[in-house]
């Protein structure tokens, strides 16, 4: 046993063995528990869902997911998630930058507050936001004179999505800003570059991969969100209805097939988007060598 400790693991390999080479006990048991539990809770149910869809037949599946209502709701979901994630890419970066770069009174409080959307249940966020942005609400009454309506409109979806996804961007970008080296920025400053030029040419490229990761996480979260949105969106079909709401409605009418087909469509769309963003991220990382 002590021999295996002093010798690096690869030298112990005699032919192929899948079991990892280590002196530590407990691999078999912990691996088995992990796999079985993963199978029961996550993979098994997902397999059943795919099996259900396969049982529908291709034609019925396509027929269900290409109705105007499904396509329109999908478009509304994607569009709102995109707007919310883009807005948060800007505000999230700003908040992360201010929280890491500057010292000001209340900074620690503000930093803790960023995690509020992680901790606050979505139903609470939903009723709070819809009360704030209702035409007679604290914020809604300020916007109404300008002809802006948010609650019970498609814009409400974007506001709720922004609320729930903000910490994903801030928390992914923050550690990267912390690790940025000041030397390059200071050198550029000495050579007479403006603050904006320094940020765009030096800081932003280093932050970009993390910003994309945060964007992807935020986007996925927005796309799946249900709880906060149902209170603020008004849920009018083809206008302010998102895909998860449609799935719940199909289930309420005991249309399992419809709900499942739309669910599978949604899974496929979100995995495709995540894959795209991951590839994009790999490309950025390669290009900027970060």
């Amino acid at each position: 046993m002590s021999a295996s400790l002093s010798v690096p693991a690869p030298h112990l390999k005699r032919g192929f063995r899948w079991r990892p080479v280590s002196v530590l006990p407990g691999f078999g048991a912990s691996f088995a528990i992990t796999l079985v539990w993963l199978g029961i809770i996550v993979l098994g149910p997902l397999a059943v869902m795919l099996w259900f869809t396969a049982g529908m037949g291709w034609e019925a599946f396509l027929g269900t997911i290409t109705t105007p209502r499904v396509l329109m709701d999908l478009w509304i979901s994607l569009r709102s998630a995109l707007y919310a994630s883009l807005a948060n890419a800007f505000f999230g970066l700003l908040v992360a930058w201010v929280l890491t770069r500057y010292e000001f009174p209340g900074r620690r409080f503000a930093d803790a507050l960023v995690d509020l959307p992680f901790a606050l249940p979505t139903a609470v966020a939903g009723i709070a936001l819809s009360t704030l942005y209702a035409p007679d609400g604290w914020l809604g009454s300020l916007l109404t004179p300008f002809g802006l309506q948010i609650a019970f409109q498609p814009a409400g979806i974007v506001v709720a999505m922004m609320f729930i996804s903000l910490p994903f961007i801030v928390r992914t970008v923050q550690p990267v800003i912390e690790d940025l080296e000041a030397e390059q920025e200071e050198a550029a400053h000495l050579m007479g570059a403006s603050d904006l030029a320094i940020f765009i040419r030096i800081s932003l490229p280093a932050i970009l991969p993390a910003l994309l990761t945060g964007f992807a996480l935020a986007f996925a979260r927005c796309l799946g969100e249900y709880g906060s949105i149902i209170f603020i969106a008004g849920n009018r079909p083809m206008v302010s209805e998102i895909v998860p709401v449609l799935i719940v409605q199909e289930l309420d009418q005991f249309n399992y097939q419809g709900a499942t087909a739309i669910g599978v469509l949604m899974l496929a769309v979100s995995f495709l988007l995540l894959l795209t963003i991951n590839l994009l991220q790999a490309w950025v990382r390669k290009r900027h060598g970060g």
Partner: protein
Amino acid sequence: MVDKAAGKRGKAGKIALISTALVFMALFLLLPLIIVFTQALSAGFGAYFSSIADPNVQSAIWMTLIIAAITVPANLVFGICASWCIGRFAFPGRNLLITLIDLPFSISPVIAGLLEVLLFGLNGLLGAWLSAHNIQIIFALPGMVLATIFVTFPFVAREVIPLVQEQGNEEEEAAVTLGANFWQIFLHVSLPKIRWGLLYGVLLCNARAMGEFGAVSVVSGKVFGETDTLSLAVESLYGSYEVQAAFAVASLLALLALVTLVAKSVVEFLVRDELAAMKRKRTA
């Protein structure tokens, strides 16, 4: 150092950035929190406490606590197992396993509920067998627990796995050479190393388990006073125009969120302290 360099360049720009960020946070994060409490107390403390003392709300509090009391330990044990095999051993397919564990993060909670319905619902895969044996899973506690476990599945594992990978196995291997068995290593060597990460994961998992809405709403059947959790009670009350009562219940969940945030900050502070002490020890 950075601050000084930044300070030399226009102070006005710095103040503009800070105030924009703070105004955004005040409007977007602080205001929703404040309105929960002002609305909850809009009819005075008497109305507030009588909304909470309502038997249906009391039963929702119990449901919420029971679901969390099952979900959190389940995910804690899973997180420890997953971090032991993924964090301490190198085997082919390890990254795939991590990806699969993270999967529930990118799946809508509504789909999590749908999965349980497809499995255990009346027309589901096991529906006929379950109803023949008089076992109720959907529209009852077991389905709500399963859906919540699905949604919170990665929470503990994803906090602890990177921590274990970063810390390495040196101390554990030393313990093996000294003749320690698995439980001795785990309890006396590994657990103290990962305790803050575990606590952090448990805090987040608990907050989500108590507050989950979408997944639970699909499988609960929403019988107010029977299968309602606090989140579902917020919806039922709000939907029947009992706005003040809805916000009173919401304020309980908001308090839970505040406690979670404070506890999280404290854990982060302790971890930073411990890391600093470790670094001092190493350099000394």
